[in-house]
């Protein structure tokens, strides 16, 4: 059974390990060229910017390729590994149970706790491989071995915590969507706590991201925080396994109602039904993204004050190519760019849910009605695009509320990133037609993959959408680029629909 869990997860684990290790290696290896473009003082000025500190963590040991890599990619890599760990853990526990496959295994000698243990073991193995890959990547990129090991351990430890969170969520919540949402919320809160921890020291000690940061790889290599991190991981694992005991199969600790009155709203058409299915996830993602922007918006005053006192730093940052990063508008634009990642992943996840419905045969009754495939996928894409605009608009309002930025400017800023998220939506629609096994991965590519590539590999940056995203409200929108991206998204969607029309329905 551990072998089965490994088999169900090893592909994703390999992709994550290669991505995490590769990114670390690339940034470390290109350290000289990247750093060569900046002189020491402007780099330090940039690094001392509170916005940058909150986003990427405190810059330490920037004079070392390893330290620079940890600062530049550490949080992103830890989030990548953690997100994979938590999603895979919920898939192997609650997902297998939802699909009715767990019953077969539990009819044998296996207990529910045993099942949870094995899922945890498989995900943990993947996380450890990713951690080793990060260490190996750093060493291969020319960083010192000790720091590389500490950073790899921090990444793996963070991933282990979220493997436990994912298994726990699988025991607590009664559906896979609910479990993934629960785990994602924990991840979001942990990230937020890390950011707050930059200002309120104790908070940094309760979040895995903060603990990994406090192990200061390449700048002291402290073991204490790593031990606390390990204890946190063991703690979550124990709670998860305790929750698995004495629970009915198919039920979570949170229970569904067995009977309820019908709610017929939005069941009158394919479009209405798509809206009905989209409301819950849209609400969840919007709360997460808007909450993040509300928080970072509240930091703006502090940054402006900081830059007023350090005029020279602002000039230096601008001179280094980071135009207006230190102004309220520049900071806002940078935040909005970050927000396009969850927005794009949200869009891709909606199409991935449609693909999952098809594989689970839920789509079949609908497609046996006079509903064409083009309308089926096209409606989902249209509803998701609308949900995306709602998400970005609410996010803009939240940022304006938190920062005091003009509402119009904030809305223009968040909505400017819509084309990037739409590219993710288009890529997901294309994958739904051409590569239905990998809709979420392909869909996340333009937003999440593009952002990482843009940040980590300067020579390839022009290929990513972020190179063509104007920093609104710090600069006027780049209409030709935005329209081009929307046109590409539409073309991808069209190709996806054509392929979906021609292919067989996939069911398992």
């Amino acid at each position: 059974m551990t072998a089965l869990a490994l088999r169900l997860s090893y592909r994703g684990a390999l992709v994550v390990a290669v991505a995490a290790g590769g990114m670390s290696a690339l940034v470390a290896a290109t350290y000289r060229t990247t750093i060569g473009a900046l002189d020491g003082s402007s780099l330090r000025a940039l690094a001392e910017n509170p916005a940058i500190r909150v986003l990427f963590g405190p810059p330490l040991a920037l004079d070392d390729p390893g330290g620079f890599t940890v600062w530049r990619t550490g949080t992103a890599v830890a989030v990548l590994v953690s997100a994979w760990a938590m999603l895979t853990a919920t898939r192997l526990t609650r997902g297998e149970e939802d699909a009715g496959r767990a019953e077969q295994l539990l009819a044998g000698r296996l207990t529910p706790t045993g099942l949870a243990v094995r899922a945890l073991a498989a995900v943990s193995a993947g996380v450890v491989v990713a951690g080793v890959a990060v260490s190996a990547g750093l060493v291969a990129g020319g960083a010192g071995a000790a720091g590389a090991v500490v950073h790899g351990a921090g990444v793996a430890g963070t991933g282990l915590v979220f493997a436990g969170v994912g298994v726990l969520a699988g025991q607590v919540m009664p559906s896979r969507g609910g479990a993934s949402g629960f785990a994602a919320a924990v991840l979001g809160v942990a990230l937020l706590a890390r950011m707050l921890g930059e200002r309120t020291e104790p908070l940094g000690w309760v979040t895995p991201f903060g603990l990994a940061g406090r192990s200061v790889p390449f700048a002291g290599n402290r073991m204490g925080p790593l031990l606390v991190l390990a204890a946190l991981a063991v703690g979550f694992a124990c709670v998860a396994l305790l929750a698995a005991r004495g629970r009915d199969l198919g039920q979570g600790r949170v229970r569904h109602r067995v009977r309820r009155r019908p709610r017929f709203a939005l069941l009158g058409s394919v479009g209405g039904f798509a809206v009905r299915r989209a409301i819950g996830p849209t609400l969840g993602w919007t709360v997460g993204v808007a909450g993040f922007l509300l928080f970072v918006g509240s930091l703006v005053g502090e940054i402006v004050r900081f830059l007023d006192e350090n005029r020279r730093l602002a000039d230096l940052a601008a001179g280094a190519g980071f135009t207006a990063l230190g102004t309220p508008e520049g900071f806002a634009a940078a935040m909005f760019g970050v927000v396009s990642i969850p927005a794009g992943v949200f869009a891709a996840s909606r199409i991935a849910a449609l693909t999952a419905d098809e594989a689970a045969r839920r789509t079949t009754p609908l497609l046996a009605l006079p509903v064409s495939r083009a309308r089926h996928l096209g409606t989902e894409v249209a509803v998701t695009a609308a949900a995306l605009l709602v998400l970005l608009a609410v996010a803009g309002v939240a940022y304006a509320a938190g920062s005091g930025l003009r509402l119009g400017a904030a809305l223009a800023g968040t909505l400017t990133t819509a084309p990037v998220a739409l590219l993710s939506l288009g890529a997901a629609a294309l994958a739904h037609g051409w590569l239905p096994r990998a809709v979420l991965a392909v869909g996340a590519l333009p937003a999440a993959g593009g952002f990482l590539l843009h940040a980590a590999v300067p020579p390839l940056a022009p290929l990513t959408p972020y190179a063509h995203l104007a920093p609104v409200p710090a600069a006027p929108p780049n209409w030709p680029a935005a329209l081009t991206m929307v046109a590409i998204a539409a073309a991808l969607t069209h190709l996806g629909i054509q392929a979906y029309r021609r292919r067989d329905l996939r069911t398992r």
Partner: protein
Amino acid sequence: MSTPAIRADGLGKRFGRVLAVDGLSLTVEPGEVFGFLGPNGAGKSTTIRMLLGLVRPSAGAALIFGDPAGDVRRAHRHLAYVPADVALWPTLTGAEVLELLAEVGPGTDRGYRNELVRRFELDVNRPARTYSTGNRQKVSLVAAFATRAPLLVLDEPTSGLDPLMEREFRACVTEARDRGQAVFLSSHQLAEVEAVCDRVGILRAGRLVEIAGVAELRRLRQTVVEASFRDDVPSLVDVPGVLAVESLDRNRVRFTLSGPPGPALNALSTADPTAVVMREPSLAEIFLSYYGSGR
């Protein structure tokens, strides 16, 4: 002549190197109940999924009331479908699923639907995640039978139903035929097909091996007889209707019986039988005896 409800011409489907359905041609007339028989894996579901445009044929074509099966916006206005393995959105209640299918579907008789919910004893206020296989099947059956679509395509619709509900199902098929709806019923139960169908097609290893009226099908009906005797087994040579005599041991015998049982029973009673067991052969046994086991 009216347009056939289903017309398939040389329908074929290849999955990689496996030929799932090969050169299938058949016609189902409006108002006809057509049984589609075959063992598991014969290609029944693949054929139905091609008729519904869910799977694209590698060869041939199918028309639903004259509309190409692939043009689902037209073709699906003529039909309602019950899949072999019904999956529903887990958070929707039965009532909500029925509402969605009625609103988007080709037209539903809501009065009749409420009657069907009663007859199938379906609790529609439960979320689909709490439904058993049989209950999910009932939701799909109620939705299909309640439509006014002139063709019902039912893929092994009774596999999860208990005998009482199976009886209700047969009554519904009869009512559908009385309303003039054609029914395409896939099954591996000979008795079910015999009870409700006008004509039967038999599929084996992806090929249609026989299309016959139910009366003709009865010649496929045989009884397997096993008899035990206190002493030796009597001679069954040249007894009318007795086939494939198999001696199990000195005082036990097995044979198949077709036609009236009188002569065979007379022959058995010439000795001193201690037990006689008669049972219907499984479809697989019929296939084996009629068509051999090979491909």
